[in-house]
């Protein structure tokens, strides 16, 4: 296991470096940022001065070389927008997203497992139908739509919750609710699907024949064997939340890393783009290693 972990870790580091190289060169294909940081009516001389000040007038491979040598000294560059360390900017924003993503994934996975299993226990029954329709409606609704309507209803209309911002638990309710919708909807369907297959297996018939309660059969036996695809999909959803809780962050004013990344990409703030991708990629790679380890824990047939 340790051998496997060591190998995965080294592969991951190589991949992250590859990712950073890719990002470095590809982002510089997307146009000259000088035009974005200076007023539109700046003179060409002013733009040349800006490019020189920020090292943008050098050939790309020289810029890359400087970037790599700075990396060795743990200098991740300076944000052209915010005039401070790019990594500080990224690390300030990351915990905001992590908090939201963690709570949302925990709640949605837990709820989805319960609801999906119960739905699979009596397929095409009333509970199954209602659970499917509700979860799918939530999963396919545009998230800004739900967010803004929720704010209009609960904050402006009923005045029971604040509109936006960070703070005590009342500030978390709507953002978490909106973030949970798609993961919950997809996971309910995945759990239901895999549980349906498991519940049809012979060993389940044996368990029932032995007289085990429905509860024990569903949650004690069938569930554990259906969890592999569920964990995979949950992991993919978690990583997409890390990258993209953008809508929730921008509507509710949480200064998270999703919004930071989008703004930096649009503004061509290269150092911050690279730093945020480094932070999120590390998180994603770690999460994937964790999930692969979970496979081995949950299913003894899986061997590395």
């Amino acid at each position, binding site marked *: 296991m340790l051998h496997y972990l060591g190998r995965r870790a080294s592969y991951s580091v190589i991949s992250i470096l590859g990712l950073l190289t890719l990002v470095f060169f590809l982002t510089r294909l997307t*146009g000259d940022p000088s035009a974005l940081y*200076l007023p539109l009516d700046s003179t060409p001389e002013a733009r040349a001065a800006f490019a020189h000040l920020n090292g943008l007038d050098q050939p790309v491979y020289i810029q890359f070389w400087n970037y790599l040598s700075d990396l060795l000294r743990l200098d991740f560059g300076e944000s052209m927008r915010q005039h*401070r360390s790019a990594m500080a900017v990224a690390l300030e924003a990351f915990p905001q997203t992590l908090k939201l993503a963690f709570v949302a994934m925990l709640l949605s996975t837990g709820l989805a497992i319960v609801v999906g299993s119960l739905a699979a226990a009596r397929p095409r029954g009333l509970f199954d139908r209602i659970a499917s329709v509700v979860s799918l409606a939530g999963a396919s609704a545009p998230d800004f739509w739900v967010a803004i309507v929720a704010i209009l209803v609960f904050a402006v209309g009923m*005045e029971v919750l604040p*509109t936006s911002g960070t703070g005590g638990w009342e500030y978390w309710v709507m953002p978490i609710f909106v973030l949970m919708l798609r993961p919950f909807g997809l996971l309910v369907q995945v759990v239901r699907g895999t549980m349906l297959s498991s519940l049809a297996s012979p060993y389940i018939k044996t368990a029932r024949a032995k007289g085990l309660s429905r509860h024990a059969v569903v949650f004690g036996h069938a569930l554990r064997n259906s969890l592999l695809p569920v964990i995979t999909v949950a992991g993919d959803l978690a990583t997409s939340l890390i990258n993209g809780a953008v809508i929730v962050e*921008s509507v509710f*004013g949480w200064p998270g890393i999703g919004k930071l990344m989008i703004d930096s990409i649009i503004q061509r703030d290269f150092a911050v783009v690279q730093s945020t991708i480094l932070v999120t990629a590390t998180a994603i790679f770690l999460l994937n290693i964790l999930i692969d380890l979970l496979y081995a824990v949950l299913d003894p047939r899986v061997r590395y």
Partner: protein
Amino acid sequence: MKRAGIYSLVSAALMAVAAGPALAQGGSHDVRIVLPEQPANLEPCGSIVTNVGQVLNQNVTEPLTVIDAKTGKPEPKLATGWEQIDADTWRLKLRQGVKFHDGADFNAKAVAYSIERMTGGKLTCNNMAKFGNAKLTVKPVDDYTVEIKSDRPQPILPTLLSVVMVVSPNTPADKAVNDPVGTGPFKLTTFTPQTVVLDPFDGYWGKKPVVTKATYVWRQESSIRAAMVETGEADLTPSIAIQDASNPKTDFAYLNSETTAIRIDLAQPPLNDVRIRKALNLAIDWDGLGQLFGDDIQRASQMVVPGIIGHDDKLQPWKYDAAQAKKLVAAAKADGVKVDTEIKLIGRNGIYPNGAEAMEAMMTMWRSAGLNVKLVMLDVADWVRYLQKPYPAERGATLLQMMHDNNKGDAAFTIPIFYRSSGQYSVLNDPALDKEIDAAMAASGQAREDGFKKLFDKMRNEVVPDIPMFHMLGYTRVGNRLNWKPDITTNSEIPLANIQFKN
């Protein structure tokens, strides 16, 4: 850059925010303002950026002069008087008894330091863009008098000085700062990714404002900003979308000194035929299009707003005449102009509200006039390649969606960049026109004004190098506690001194 101070400020701010909405209103003269975007930094030399200026200008930092929006002329602020010594030199008298937030004295040496910091080239200073490539040298004559000398004639230097934000001589000259120290009535207490907080400065030289604390937050969605003022979570938002401005008691519109237009690339066929350019102006249902921007929207006949020196109040904008447009296109076609050449209408995402819809509408109207127009929406970095010289070589015939902001009171900041052959946005190349422009720029007083007016008339009636659309409106929402109305400068600054309270 080590920011030990910021970390303690951050934790203090987070604790304050975590204490919940109860703290939102605080003292009765505290103000909470919600902006559309986070100010990326608080460098005073970048205060021409809307979000930065709305926080800093005349609150934390003050300029040497301010422009009077109605006359376009400069008024005293930190400089109390000025006289022109020769074509390149001006002498300024400075205000006495002014101190910076960190205790330093405001005097000629401080002004010289600020200007040198701005022009030194060690940091990017966007405010200086209006000066072009001019070089300035500042000489303190005595403690409260400076002489500013430029390397080229500066007939309107006091107007230009309205962007010079004076900072404490203790400010580093070689890097941008996020904790500016100025002379304004408020000092910066907190700057985090979630909020900016300004507290009053007791040593201010002028009248103490009524506002006792200002907290700025930001939300990207207009409907959320409007909702925040409605529920009382915020007192003021300087920018909401027109469709959210539905309550006449709290929502106020203001002319915001921006003019929207389409620039015609008249070097490329078929746009090089003036009949086609006139047809482009005539084919648009201006009343219908204007509804996208509000009932009070003003149709533009030239690229500056009324109140700017050089604006010709008598100039009439183009009127909708679809039949005439079709006739002009047909006449051009009959003369052999290839009117079915594809014309690219280049739009820019998010340039102004309903911008994409406006482009779609205009494209449809031009197509029904017989022209082959194709819309391409680009993001800002891509769009800028078409805006500024050098233009991409293979661009073909293009129409460029653009918006021009001139709040400096003088058409000198508009005419050369658009119409002189050396201008950054210009597609014209006419030496006679260049001479006319240069003459007007060097003149002063009435001759200057008349020269500019004549140029705008010529563009509108003879040359038709662009399609001026509208003088844009901004919409603000003001909560019930405040007594405040926006004006033309609101797009660039929100002086807290102008905020009063209803009691």
